[in-house]
């Protein structure tokens, strides 16, 4: 796999520091599962977190009674052991996405969005941003739209292109309020993406705007 469009440095840093809300975190974690080089970068950012933790001035003391109390509470707890790596048949959706949607690609129950596009809202505890899977038929466009906030789209199956280039499995496209775009799925294969946004999309065509309140994107 040859990923061309990665996560920006500051998004990766925010993820590693624990500052991203859950839907954005799901986007980053799914990309990390597909992209060894970003995994290495995330590890570096987490190492900075570790170094900062190590450099903190300790708060309070750890006395014998606190330790004794802790030991008492963990006395009966089992210690987890590393599971041997079992490489079963590879799945299309990596973790943590697979658990979020309740199974691999072929187990999904898509909902019709209109214009041949399907989606599957993903349940998170994120109160601000929302995540969904999107399925766009091969060779067809997602209607021209702009954004009131930020949107990230990660390709899982097939590919699409925008004026910014071609996006394949693992690639992330980032769009914000300044971008009005019309992604077009490549011919040959339906394009399935993970999409996260913190605000409703704004469709340009009147017809799309009329149906938008009913389809909930």
């Amino acid at each position, binding site marked *: 796999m040859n990923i061309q469009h990665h996560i920006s*440095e*500051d998004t990766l*840093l*925010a993820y590693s*520091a*624990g*500052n991203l*809300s*859950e839907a954005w*975190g799901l986007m*980053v*974690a799914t990309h*990390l*599962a*597909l*992209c*060894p080089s970003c*995994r290495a970068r995330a*590890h*570096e950012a*987490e*190492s*900075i*977190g*570790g*170094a*900062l*933790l*190590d*450099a*903190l*001035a*300790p*708060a*309070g003391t*750890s006395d014998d009674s*606190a*330790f004794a109390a*802790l*030991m008492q*509470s*963990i006395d009966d*707890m*089992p*210690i*987890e*052991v*590393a599971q041997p790596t*079992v490489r079963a048949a*590879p*799945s*299309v*959706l*990596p*973790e*943590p996405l*697979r658990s979020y949607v309740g199974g691999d690609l072929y187990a999904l129950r898509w909902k019709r969005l209109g214009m041949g596009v399907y989606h599957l809202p993903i349940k*998170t505890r*994120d109160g601000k941003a929302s995540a969904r899977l999107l399925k766009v038929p091969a060779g067809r466009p997602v209607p021209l739209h702009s954004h009131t906030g930020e949107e990230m789209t990660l390709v899982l199956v097939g590919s699409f292109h925008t004026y910014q280039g071609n996006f394949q499995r*693992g690639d992330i496209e980032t769009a914000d309020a300044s971008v009005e775009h019309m992604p077009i799925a490549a011919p040959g294969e339906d394009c399935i993406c993970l999409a996260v946004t913190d605000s409703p999309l704004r469709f340009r065509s009147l017809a799309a705007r009329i149906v938008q309140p009913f389809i909930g994107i």
Partner: protein
Amino acid sequence: MPAIRPYLRLVTAPGAAPPHNGNRIAFMPERTTDTSAANDLATNDLAKCLSAVAAHQDRRAFRTLFDHFAPRVRAYGMRLGCTPQQAEELAQETMVKVWRKAGLFDPAKAAPSTWIFRIARNQRIDAFRRESHPEFDPNDPGLVPDEEIPADQLIEQRQSGEALRLMLETLPEEQKLLLHMSFYQDMSHSHIADKLNLPLGTVKSRLRLAMGKLKTRLTEPHAISTEEFDT
């Protein structure tokens, strides 16, 4: 502190530490805010403690980890706005997880401080933000595996705990401040920009600069002279 001596001896034995890391203690930067002797514990000592907990539920080793990390996780919680009570809970819960998950710690993959930072971070998000921190599963068949890591890079990763701590000290104040705000104030970059009255682009580019600097120095272990830190 007699309790920690057995673990200290393991790493101060001749030849135990890599050659260019041998005078580690001598070039530790001064930290006036920190008087704890436990702070001198090196990555290797702490890693050995974790392995001892995993191998035979070694309580003395766990006490060493507890003395080192519980007060720091407490400080981490306080910085992020926890009450003292919540910070105490965060420290306790984190240490419970350290005990239970010690067997999953792999010293070749992460420094103990990095591993425990992750646990504390996720615990805080779970307990106080009532969200999860989504993470990939390294054993997932759907994961695209790493390429083989050359042996010399593995050594480098082990050292990076101390090396990073030293390098952080050398960053310009403005970059250090932004890293601290990112990790300790649960703020998005746009919040940080508002608070400091800086354009968002400036915040992002300074963070990128800081990360870039840390990385170049990490990948070129000899670019940084140990004399720089001699006191």
